[in-house]
């Protein structure tokens, strides 16, 4: 095992390829969410505002099921101490962050594919550029917040319930901005003018969260 963030990332990817827990959990979660929406709204015309709320609810809770594992699994398998010995705090954070970001992007892309397939009539994106931009920025923000919060709660009791409770209020500015930007990208062909404020909020939120977690990670990682 190399000592940089690449080593941490490689380790996580190898474990993922062995068990496929993260990917399958996330995909199953998305499929169930889509099925529930399909069964509960038969023949309904879903407005862009409802469509953007549904896709972000699916993404947020999907992230909470998939991304919470990153540090919790280290504690459960008892490998956290070994990781502390082998790698520096910042390489653990960057490795886990990139792994979570990859998982989150996969979740976002598969959500878009599922929505395009199952909601072909209502899910008409008019401005794909703005849509992908805000989706990526939202994914980065959710990945950053859930990585640091997952490290925070890795040894708390009631872990499963605690992460959404801690993460939702912190992520709320991001969710407000992305749902608004998604709605605009679904509604108008030239969405940049309307979504500019939201995109700026997303960029500043992402940068602030990544910087804060980079500075604070050592405090919670060291015993």
């Amino acid at each position: 095992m190399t000592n940089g963030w690449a080593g941490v990332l490689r380790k996580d990817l190898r474990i993922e390829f062995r068990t496929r827990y993260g990917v399958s959990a996330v995909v199953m979660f998305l499929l169930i969410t889509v099925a529930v929406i399909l069964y509960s709204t038969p023949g309904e015309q879903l407005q862009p505002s409802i469509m953007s709320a549904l896709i972000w609810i699916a993404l947020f809770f999907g992230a909470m099921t998939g991304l919470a594992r990153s540090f919790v699994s280290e504690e459960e398998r008892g490998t956290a101490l070994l990781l502390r010995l082998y790698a520096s705090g910042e390489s653990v954070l960057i490795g886990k962050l990139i792994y979570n970001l990859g998982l989150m992007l996969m979740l976002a892309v598969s959500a878009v594919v599922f929505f395009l397939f199952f909601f072909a009539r209502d899910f008409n994106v008019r401005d794909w550029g703005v849509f992908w931009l805000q989706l990526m920025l939202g994914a980065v923000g959710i990945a950053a917040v859930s990585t640091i919060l997952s490290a925070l709660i890795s040894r708390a009791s009631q872990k499963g319930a605690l992460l959404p409770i801690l993460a939702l209020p912190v992520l709320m500015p991001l969710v407000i901005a992305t749902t608004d930007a998604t709605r605009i990208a679904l509604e108008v062909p030239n969405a940049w003018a309307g979504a500019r404020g939201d995109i700026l909020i997303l960029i500043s939120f992402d940068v602030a969260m990544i910087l804060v977690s980079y500075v604070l990670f050592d405090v919670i990682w060291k015993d």
Partner: protein
Amino acid sequence: MRLFRSNIFLWCLGIALAIQVYIAFETPIGGSFSDAATLAMNGMQDVTPVKATLVSTDSSGATFTDLYGQPGHVQITNRSYGSFQSYKKRDVLVISVAYNLAAKSFDLVEVVRVNPMMTFPMIQGLGELGRNILLHVPMAMVAFIAFLIGTIYSIMFLIKKDFEYDRHARAASAAGLLFTILATVTGSIWARFSWGTFWNWDPRETSIFILLLIYAAYFMLRSLLEESEDKKARIAAVYNIIAFVSVPFLMFVVPRITQSLHPGGGGTEAPVVNLSGQTHTDRTLLNMHWVSVVLFLFVFLWIKDMYTRILRLEAKRAEEA
């Protein structure tokens, strides 16, 4: 701080708060003649208080100039209480008037105050409800300042590793939560009478609701951790700092770019913080508002100090046990 343990200081603070609340409810509201005419023509309000200087009296009433220098003639009719006989030239009067649509003049209803020490401006659409600006807005401001102070103490704790800072951070956040609840309650009552319902999911209402969730989670986190006291305090401090990153977005950014019932939403000009960098709020109201902010800030510091002392005693007892 020793200051908050002195009875004289606390009595002074209490009396100052009582005076401030008295001023908030007793100061007359005085608008202009154009306010009275607009409100009557829109059918929003029949009788409007107007602050104006007496120019001359005549047989049917008196001529005034209002605070914008606009002249207006106010007539004594059979619905008037009192007359202008006893007032001198250049007396400043707050008079409630009814606009006479047919004659395009004003009918006196009553003389509210003569030469008042100060008046609050007539805010169209708010009227008497505008007095709540002196309670609701300072409470929300002090809540933000409290969370800021709590975060600074959390950072200090992580740097200095002294539990005293952790107790300060906890106490400041708890007092901030209290002020958030107070701002929510005063705002909710205000919303009932000016927008019709206690809760409208206006962007600012959503923001303050999420703020309550954040700090509820902060206090919940501590009780769910199975760690040493040191690690617990560190994790709570980290969450406090992460949570505070989203507070400015919730309190300052999101309400300004989305459509809102509050002033300043959706890119409209807010009275205090706006893009042109100018204060459009009336001077008297703004000054009294800052007095309120300072008084509530002292109340916040007093509550924070009390809670810090409680936490200090608890820590001491745990150490002895």
